[in-house]
Every structure is written in C-alpha cells, then in structure tokens.
C-alpha cells in the first residue's frame, strides 16, 4: 500500500523567506503526485500536480515542486513567501490499485505560518 510522509508539521517563516516543504512517498509503480492547499476557512484546492514529463512542475501563486523518482520525493518550493501563503499544505499520491482503480493517499499536512 502507498504511504506519504510530510516531514515538517508546522513551519513559521517571515515574509520574503524561501520555502521548501518535504514530501516522500512509498510506492513502487507509476504515481501521480499532488500538492493541495487549504487556506483558513476554505476547502482543499489543487496547487500543482505531476503526471509525467518535466519533473519540475509549476503551480499557481509562484509555487513549484520537483519530482525526484530516485528519492521518491516531491518537495514543494517557493522562493519568497507572502503573508497570504499562510495555510495548510497537503502532499498526495495517486496510484493504481490492484482492481484498476486509482487510490489517493494524503500526507498529514504541513501548517505554514508566514509572519509579516
């Protein structure tokens, strides 16, 4: 079964600082990888996704993530965070189960607090 690990549960940064949130997964087959964001009081929104091709993917609001297959990692980055980036970030892995259907597994989430 697949699993997802997010290493940082709570991150506090000052505005303009650089961000990197770690995500590692365990699954031997083909996966799709996602980062979702949940702003305070709002529902989960897709930030970016990797399906195939260029392992460096760019998402909304200046976020990017790099898929490193050899490390089973999909870390999220942003060069300069803003106060409005304060939110909870979830890494997710999508893989095919034995019955041919897809199954999505989420990490525990990382709460990011950006201090003005």
């Amino acid at each position, binding site marked *: 079964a697949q699993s997802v690990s997010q290493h940082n549960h709570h991150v506090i940064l000052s505005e303009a600082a650089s961000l990197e949130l770690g995500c590692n997964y365990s699954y031997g087959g083909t996966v799709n990888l996602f980062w979702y964001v949940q702003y305070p009081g709002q529902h989960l929104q897709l930030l970016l996704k990797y399906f195939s091709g260029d392992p460096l993917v760019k998402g909304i609001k200046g976020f990017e993530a790099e898929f490193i297959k050899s490390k089973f990692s999909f870390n999220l980055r942003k060069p300069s965070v803003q106060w409005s980036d304060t939110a909870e970030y979830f890494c997710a892995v999508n893989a095919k189960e034995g019955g041919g*259907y897809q*199954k999505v597994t989420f990490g*525990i*989430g990382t709460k990011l607090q950006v201090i003005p």
Partner: protein
Amino acid sequence: EAEVAQSPRYKITEKSQAVAFWCDPISGHATLYWYRQILGQGPELLVQFQDESVVDDSQLPKDRFSAERLKGVDSTLKIQPAELGDSAMYLCASSLRTGSLETQYFGPGTRLLVL
C-alpha cells in the same frame, strides 16, 4: 467553474443519533470519493464509487457508516449511531473517471460535531 457541492456545511448532533451528508459531484464525473479529515491530520479515504458501484470501502467503519450513490450521480454518507470520535470534516471529491489517474476536485466539506 463547476464545483462539488456538499450539504450541510455544519452539523451538530448528539451521540447515538443518526446523521447524513449529501454530495453532488461535478457533472460528468464518474468517480466519487468520501474522505474524513480529523483535525490536524490529512484526509483519509472512507469510500470510493465508480458510477454507482463501490470500488473501495476498506476504510469505512461498516458497523455504523454507510454510503450510497444509487443513480451514479449524487451520493449520501450516513452515520448511525454517531459517536464522539466521529467529529471531523467530511469531504467529498470527484474525478472524471477511473481506470486512469485523474485529478480530484474537492467540495467545501461538512463539519460534524458530535456532543
């Protein structure tokens, strides 16, 4: 832009009572998911439908939880009887089809508080 609809947004109930949540996926989305998100954790899959059929309910506590998607469109998740530990956010998501890997789109969720 089409969205996944859920109702109610909030529900307060007493333990041992029955509760039901409703979800209407994005039109044309064949796959529907119910997740439970306990405070401080990531969403956990409860049940997954492909059209009207259940493809994964391995994490659904079947002694008290049930889910149906009778016509392969909207879905209802029921808890009977509710327990204190069921307090959580219940999320519905949909994707275009299974058989290939698809992006999920989430609804706003139903926040349940069991007293």
